[in-house]
């Protein structure tokens, strides 16, 4: 724990405060000013210019009855749950790399995992957009050539999915409302995120070798080792990743915007709160309303984070 400094020392070392000013100013300008401005403008009918009209809580009351906004929360909830499961491959990959006996191979696998990080996210999104292309995409080609398309067509007939999988007709993954959420979930397969793997790996590396030695003496199986030693000891990292993932998923809309456009694609099936906020601001020109939506989204994320911190505890 840092020790408190005396008043005399604090005054004597006044020059050091100059080093804090740039960071402080930048945070104030780029983090706090926009937030405060958004709070202020959420009480106005504001089109982004210098003309605005105070309307009190009208933006918030409109948002409460905005079915597109709340519909977006349903979509985002599904994506959050799916993203929870999509963390499993990252944990698995981290454990497998950690268990490698050769340090050299561990190093190379870490490099392989980190290497895709240098590809800009936008490029990855475009590549995936091409994967979903109905006529030239990899996904449909794979389904056709592996024979899985036939199974999907049969399942469509059996379960009445509404003819989204038809024989001889390429599947429009981003053109059919019922396929949009599956496509958004499928995105990023095999879901091994470099940041996640590195964070889990850091957690795993902090486990002492004596724990493994004791476990081996007790004759634990690899699965027992994972469930009784590794997973409980990296729960701090898992919780951190869950919080980051939830915030990222709730705030994010780049994926939906790029794959589906500003209206969330057919049926608005890919509309998420962030995209709706963006749509209202930059397409409808309702900046004041978008600020109110942003604040509501902020409150929602804050509540979820508090719940997460309070109820998802890590017992060491």
């Amino acid at each position, binding site marked *: 724990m840092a020790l408190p400094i005396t008043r005399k020392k604090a005054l004597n070392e006044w020059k050091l405060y*100059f080093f804090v000013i740039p960071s402080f100013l930048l945070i104030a300008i780029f983090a706090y000013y926009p937030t405060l401005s958004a709070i202020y403008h959420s009480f106005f009918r504001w089109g*982004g210019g210098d003309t605005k009209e105070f309307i009190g809580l009208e933006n918030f009351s409109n948002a409460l009855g905005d079915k597109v906004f709340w519909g977006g929360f349903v979509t985002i909830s599904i994506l959050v749950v799916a993203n929870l499961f999509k963390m499993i491959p990252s944990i698995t990959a981290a454990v497998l790399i950690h268990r490698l006996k050769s340090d050299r191979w561990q190093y190379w696998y870490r490099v392989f995992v980190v290497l895709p990080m240098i590809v800009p996210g936008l490029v990855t999104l475009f590549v995936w957009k091409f994967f979903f292309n109905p006529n030239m995409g990899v996904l449909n080609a794979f389904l056709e050539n592996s024979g899985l398309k036939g199974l999907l067509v049969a399942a469509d007939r059996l379960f009445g999915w509404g003819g989204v999988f038809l024989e001889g007709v390429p599947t429009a993954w981003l053109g059919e409302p019922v396929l949009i959420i599956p496509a958004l979930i499928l995105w990023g397969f095999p879901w091994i995120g470099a940041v996640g793997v590195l964070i889990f790996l850091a957690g795993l590396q902090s486990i002492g070798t004596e724990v493994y030695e004791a476990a081996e003496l007790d004759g634990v199986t690899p699965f027992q080792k994972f469930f009784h030693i590794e997973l409980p000891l990296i729960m701090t990292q898992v919780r951190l990743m869950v919080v980051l993932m939830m915030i990222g998923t709730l705030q994010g809309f780049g994926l939906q915007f790029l794959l589906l456009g500003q209206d969330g694609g057919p049926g608005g099936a890919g509309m998420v709160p962030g995209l709706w906020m963006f749509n209202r601001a930059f397409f409808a020109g309702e900046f004041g309303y978008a600020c109110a939506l942003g604040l509501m989204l902020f409150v929602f994320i804050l509540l979820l984070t508090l719940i997460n911190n309070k109820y998802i505890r890590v017992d060491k």
Partner: protein
Amino acid sequence: MGESLREKILNGIGLGLLLLCFVISLGRIMWDRGGNTQEHGESVTIRFAHWQLEGGVREAFDEIAAAYMKLHPEVEVVQIPVPERIFQNWLITQLVGGTAPDIIQMGMGLSEDRQARFFVPSTEVADLPNPWNRGTELEGVPLRETFIDGMESCFNNSLLEYYGVPLSSYTVRMYYNLDLLHEITGSEELPATYGELVELSKKVLAYAAKSGQKVFPIAGSKYNSPTIMSRLFKSQTAGISRRVYYGALAEPTNFSAIAESAANGGWTLDDPEVLAGLKLMRDLGQYMQPGFLQLGRDDASFYFVQGKALMIATGSWDATSITSQADFRLGIGLIPVPAPGSEQGPYSEGIASDASIGTGVIMGLTRDCEHPEVALDFLLFMASQPMNQLWTDVSKWAPSVVGVVPDPQAKPFQPFFDGYLGGFDLNLGQTDTMRIISNATNRLVGPTGSVEGFLEAIRPDFLPAVEHDLVRVERNLRVSAQRSDTTLGALAWMALQDPGSVRLKEKVDLLSQTVVAGNLNHARTQRANNSVRKSLK
């Protein structure tokens, strides 16, 4: 432990450097934010932005800028090409943030209020000759009359002002792969009517089935398909538009007039004209490649230039790109619409006219411009006959100025002014109505789509979306009218102080007309809004 002198000096240097960098960065930002034009000694920088990233256009702009800079070495002209996908967001951010370039292409994302608030009207210069036309046949001719459409495309009916000047005229056409057409039909005759287009599409499908080649009749995408589908829908609704059209200033597709009429039962989603239009859209969608609604403009162009589709409907702006990429002969034709009285489109009146399209690439002067006189001079330079000739020669786009000889490639894209004007589009050209229609289009043109399914999807949300759009338009018009009121008050006061000033009197007269028109438009929108609201209760 105390600091040594050396450490003190090093720390001092470190702190000094940090402060210096900080001050320089801050100064740089303040300097850049200070205006859109920067003066470096004697030189002035003029920046202009546009979204036309198609082949040849940037080069044409570069050549015009270079020609201007050669005549004015003290002026630096900087081109800012902005991708179409982000242009709207970019534009709003620049305008609102006060960092907009001096000249911006007008159209995309520019609502009426933004136009009034952020752009300088070109009404004053419209009546004066373009000085850069000196020595040409257009010398002494008022600027307005130097354009093939008399600057109609630049005129705002509500604000009663001209905004910007046009550099090109663009039209939407059907592009054909002539080699493939010959291979399939044995002829190179292009379809003239929608019926012939359908027959040709059937032949393509039969050819694809027989040859085993993956060839589709029309390359579609969420960008390209609306251009042709909208044309077909509008071919059926011209009668409704005429029925609900009122007011000398209203264009045939006036949003508030159409919306009010929808609320009052003047037309409904179940009218035979609307159903016929939707059926045309549905039928045409079956001749595009499956899943086209998820594809973008580049995907459709790729299909076409790869020979995987016989036709593509797009504008003249894509001609250069397509010509340079296609290794087959191109045929260009008008978008076929149903023949009058035909079975497919019983409400069609005939070939669609380009009269409502007019000129394009309208470049407007922004209000934040620091050197308006230089920027205006460059704007007029771009719009002069010699520069418009250079424009068409380099970009291969159709010209906008009278007397300019179009490049041979641009000839098929010259506007076709005969024929009939279409009616309104179902999306009414407004944000939320467009979203409702766009979100449900898969129910119309998807593999299992139908007109009934589409109507079922849009019916509950259509009028509420129209109402939402009306509220926004009405509010924008009100703000715009209020602004004009203030300016009018100030001008009237100035005119009273200086009764001899003819120029001030003219300005007051002109602005009075603008205010009256703005208030009329506002009142009409408000009335339409009330009607829609009442019908929703």
